[in-house]
């Protein structure tokens, strides 16, 4: 796994340096570009005057010590920036993932039990929307309807702009607000989560519900399902206790991929909802050709992806007794 990350870092480093565009605009500002003294000083300060290879060696050496360099834009260590913004993204992603999986499994079960009936068609339509609606568009639409028009839900951001963020313990506002016993703040943060988590989780619903439906239908043709019916089990028991357990096995694997999907989705969703997470940081970084930040975000994404894969392998082994015991 460290090798993989090393590879990712190298590729992103080289690609970013080969992209046309000049980060100096960000560093010194457009006006100063004509001032050779300032430009030279900036180049020396950020190491941009050295060859790409030297820069690369330098970067990799620092990376080994957990140093991802300093952001051109925020002038803070990238590690610090990421650490600051990660909880916001994690909170959003986890709610989206869990909500998406729960709704997705429920929809998948309903669709399989009533296949080719009305419920199935509705579920298919809902899933299709989730996986094909651009997050950007869906986000703006939901904001327009539920915030601007109906006023049922708050606008962008993690909490009311006049509110004060809870003291940082976990960095999850929904958790930290409870930890300090502030229920109003808890409610506020939950309300703020609903729309972005819906936008982000909808895609998960799409993937998971289709997969659960398909694998449940596969399971329905299995002998043990017929045995269950022949023994007089209720259809509900046959589905929930027998078939679903098996159908969820492939879902565990897919959830890891869903997570990658979520990370990209988070970039768009965070932008629409002004969510101060890693996604919006990534957008800023690439807009400003902020090399260290770009690589940092990519590495974080790669790590997250590898970790979820590892986690899903473990979860799979745990859920399937045939693997667990061998």
């Amino acid at each position, binding site marked *: 796994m460290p090798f993989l990350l090393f590879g990712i870092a190298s590729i992103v480093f080289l690609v970013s340096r080969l992209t046309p565009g000049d980060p100096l605009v960000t560093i010194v500002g457009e006006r100063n570009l004509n001032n050779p003294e300032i430009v030279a000083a900036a180049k020396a300060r950020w190491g941009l005057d050295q060859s790409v290879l030297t820069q690369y060696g330098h970067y990799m050496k620092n990376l080994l010590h957990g140093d991802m360099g300093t952001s051109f834009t925020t002038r803070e260590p990238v590690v610090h920036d990421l650490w600051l913004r990660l909880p916001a993204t994690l909170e959003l992603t986890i709610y989206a993932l869990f909500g998406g999986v729960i709704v997705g499994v429920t929809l998948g079960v309903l669709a399989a039990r009533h296949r080719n009936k009305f419920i199935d068609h509705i579920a298919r339509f809902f899933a299709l929307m989730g996986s094909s609606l651009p997050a950007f568009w869906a986000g703006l639409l939901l904001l327009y309807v539920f915030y601007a028009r109906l006023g049922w839900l708050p606008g962008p951001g993690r909490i009311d702009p006049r509110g004060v963020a809870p003291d940082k313990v976990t960095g999850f506002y929904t958790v930290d607000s409870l930890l300090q016993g502030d229920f109003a703040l808890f409610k506020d943060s939950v309300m703020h989560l609903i729309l972005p988590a819906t936008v982000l989780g909808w895609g998960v619903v799409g993937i998971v519900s289709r997969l659960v439906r398909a694998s449940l239908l596969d399971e329905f043709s299995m002998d*043990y399902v017929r045995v*269950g019916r022949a023994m007089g089990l209720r259809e509900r028991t046959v589905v929930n206790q027998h078939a679903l357990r098996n159908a969820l096995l492939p879902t565990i694997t897919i959830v890891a991929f869903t997570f990658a999907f979520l990370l990209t989705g988070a970039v768009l969703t965070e932008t629409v909802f002004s969510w101060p997470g890693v996604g919006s940081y990534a957008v800023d970084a690439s807009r400003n050709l902020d090399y260290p930040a770009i690589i940092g975000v990519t590495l974080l994404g790669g790590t997250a992806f590898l970790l979820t894969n590892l986690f899903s392998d473990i979860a799979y082994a745990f859920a399937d007794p045939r693997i667990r015991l061998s």
Partner: protein
Amino acid sequence: MAEPVLSLRDLRVTFPTPAGPARAVRGIDLDVMAGESVAVVGESGSGKSVTMLATLGLLPKAEVSGSVRYNDTELVGADVDTLRSVRGRRISMVFQDPMTSLNPVLTIGKQMALVMKAHQPELSKKDCRSKAVDLLHQVAIPQAARRIDAYPHELSGGMRQRVMIAMSIANDPEVLIADEPTTALDVTVQAQIMELLQTLRVEKNLALVLITHDLGVVAGSADRVAVMYAGRIVERSPVRDLFADPQHPYSRALLECLPRLDQKQEVVSSIGGTPPNPADLPTGCPFAPRCPMALPSCTQAEPTLVRFRTSEVACNIVSGGDRAEAQA
């Protein structure tokens, strides 16, 4: 005469298929008395499994007509709750492949508990567990108290079939339908499973419907035999008579397929040709195209079951008294 526990009358099952309606079962009459053992034999595809699945209403996609009565309850067209109250509780079923009949991700104790709870919801977890251990004892599974927490893949095929049998008798049914319960097992294990079924039948006064395409299995374990071909019963006899003097040419052909101790033959002979496709049945007797004794008249009308000595036979030649003639 006693009333049958299970009684099929003119049971018909048709599957809609792209090639047209497949008439897999075409009018079966069968009575099963309390505690008796009936065998249903026939080649693969003759409609044995479909008949039994239809009996319990387990073929949602098929068109089923005729009558299936469990005591006084009509099962054809019955609602889900009626069917559920019979399935596993009054009439139970053991399937062919113990490898796939159990859920791979649940312990056998859990699966048995689900079956018990389906009909005895008042049972506690503890009750289910001790009952399950007891049942595993009854089907001669060693170390039952430990095995109950095993997953299916940890057991051998024979053990799994024992578990299946334990499950099928968990709610004290009156009728046990065993659909080729030994086909998927080693020969040595086959005999043990058949013996177990016989023991349970006697101990629990179970009526046993044994489905098989192996007449050898039938010899020691059934009172009466029904021979099926192309969705119909073509001969019905007491076991002894079928073996001593089979009437229908198809029964005779089946018997000739049995490996015999006195002949030491390596290759078991089989009946030439294949059974007809249920979506495209020939007119007249469906066995005629393969029948060594067929007369031109056989392809005209399909024969019905007619009493002949101790048997009932559906054969134009036999019932027409032309048998001797045809043989000559």
